[in-house]
């Protein structure tokens, strides 16, 4: 029972209370870069979930055999291998999105969430909890990405997933898309607003 609870919390906690983006403040860089549109944000989220879950499992299997002084290199090799696989899969089946994400799929290797979870969790836990932790953190990251991309695409381009949402009659009345939403600074402000709302509801997370 106790292990079940622990597994559950490994999966659930990163969604809100211990969210990698808005509480641990990791992975902000890609959060600014890929969230101008909803589609690449979703693909990025799924890629990170996959890489994070499987690298967590692999490192967790290897954790007792990795010498401490070269563990970072081993972790990087595992993550880099998985990233290359994801990148090839995207190029094969989602070529357009892969073009849009360009270098950012490759940069998952340097995403702080990856190294953070490998060091903090997978190195000290069994494969199954590590897998759940990877899924949890990946989903926590993807949620924020999707929320940010939702607002940026809706207000910046007037579309969602490439489909026009804001009716043409609005534009005739003088409405205009907010060009600042497409630029990275606005992504930071949207993330800040999410953090603001999140901290308002979770008073124990507020810094003194």
């Amino acid at each position, binding site marked *: 029972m106790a292990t079940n609870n622990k597994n559950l919390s490994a999966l659930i906690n990163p969604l809100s209370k211990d969210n990698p983006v808005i509480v641990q403040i990791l992975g902000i860089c890609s959060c600014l870069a890929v969230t101008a549109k909803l589609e690449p944000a979703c693909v990025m989220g799924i890629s990170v979930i996959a890489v994070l879950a499987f690298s967590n499992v692999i490192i967790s299997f290897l954790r007792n055999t990795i010498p401490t002084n070269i563990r970072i290199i081993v972790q990087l090799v595992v993550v880099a291998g998985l990233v290359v696989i994801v990148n090839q899969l995207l190029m094969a089946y989602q070529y357009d999105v892969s073009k849009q994400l360009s270098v950012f799929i490759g940069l998952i290797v340097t995403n702080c969430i990856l190294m953070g979870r490998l060091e903090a969790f997978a190195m000290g836990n069994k494969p199954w909890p590590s897998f759940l932790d990877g899924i949890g953190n990946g989903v926590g990251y993807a949620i924020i990405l999707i929320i940010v991309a939702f607002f940026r695409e809706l207000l910046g381009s007037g579309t969602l997933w490439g489909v026009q949402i804001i009716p043409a009659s609005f534009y005739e009345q*003088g*409405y*205009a898309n*907010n*060009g*600042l*939403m497409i*630029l990275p600074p606005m992504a930071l*402000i949207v993330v800040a607003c999410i953090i603001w709302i999140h901290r308002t509801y979770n008073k124990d997370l507020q810094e003194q």
Partner: protein
Amino acid sequence: MKSLRKYLDRIKPNFEPGGKLQSFHSVFDGFETFLFTPSTTSRSGVNIHDSLDSKRMMIIVVIALIPCLLFGMYNTGYQHWLAIGASEFPFWQLMLYGFCKVFWRIVVAYAVGLGIEFCVAQWRKEEIQEGFLVSGILIPLICPIETPLWMIAVATAFSVIFVKEVFGGTGYNIFNVALVTRAFLFFAYPSHMSGDGVFVPLKGTLGIGDGTAVDGFSGATPLGQVATNVGNTLHLTNVVGEPLTYWDMFLGLIPGSFGETSTLCILIGAAILLLTGIASWRIILSVFAGGFLMGLVAHTFATPSYPASMLTAAEQLTLGGFAFAAVFMATDPVTAARTNTGKYIYGFLVGVIAILIRTYNNGYPEGAMLAVLLMNAFAPLIDYCVVQSNMRRRMRRLNAKA
């Protein structure tokens, strides 16, 4: 006056804790202190009391802006009359036309900004801060006259919330609120903030100034024309294609954002601010010095690939928002440097960077806004360096003695 005081005293208990309307305490307090200077002063020790509180300071800045505002109204009408090919310019009709155009923009800026300030003050149970008094009038002055009202509302709301309130309200903001509003509009809705159709209104208002634009009309500002100039000589024209004189530029009878075209009116405002001691002469002087110097350097190495470098230094200072930024934006006491040496450095760099952006970045025909915002970010660092070097100097002196 007495009856007003009596009325306020009578309704005051309602707003005290426990009263019926206690949640509106800050609104009441705001109006009371606005109408009557608070009588509560310190009762012990030696204190010098001056009647100059921040509300009075703000009001003087607003008064200094009035020449620009009035001239903006006249110029809006004048440009419109020019554009429809009129040969006579009836003064009062021109003023009325400009007034109708700008009135709702001022109302929207104040309503949105003060609305947010009031709500935040209620919510935090603090006094209402008067900081928006000046920002509210600055915002319509620095925007093109044809900026849609809802854009002004959105931009004002954005900058009051994210530039002022999240940092803690008036006096804590890092960036100038009015300029961030302008920057937000500039980056969010570029097509409504530059180009042909935004600086000169073409439609009549309330039956005044009906007409259509003449053939050959071009509503581009002088700096806009400079940015697209080709060839070895500059051709600056007014809206119907007649050449501009330096006198036109100085008086401000050129298309541009509402209140910033007239260098003369800005100088009148500067005189009011300097005589009352509100603005720092160090900043104003050093901004103009920096701009003039950079203008000279640019003009010395004039090339057709950077057409703005063909403007003389004196033209650089009178065109665009440079003078307005120097007098009303860079001198904002909250966001400028505080130390006297720091003020010289800050102002000088504002001037240099404004002309630098204007001349060597073809993407931005006007650099004054970005220069002031950039130096706002650096002002605390400048102050820190000045204070540290002062401390080092005095430490050396102390060590030399000992």
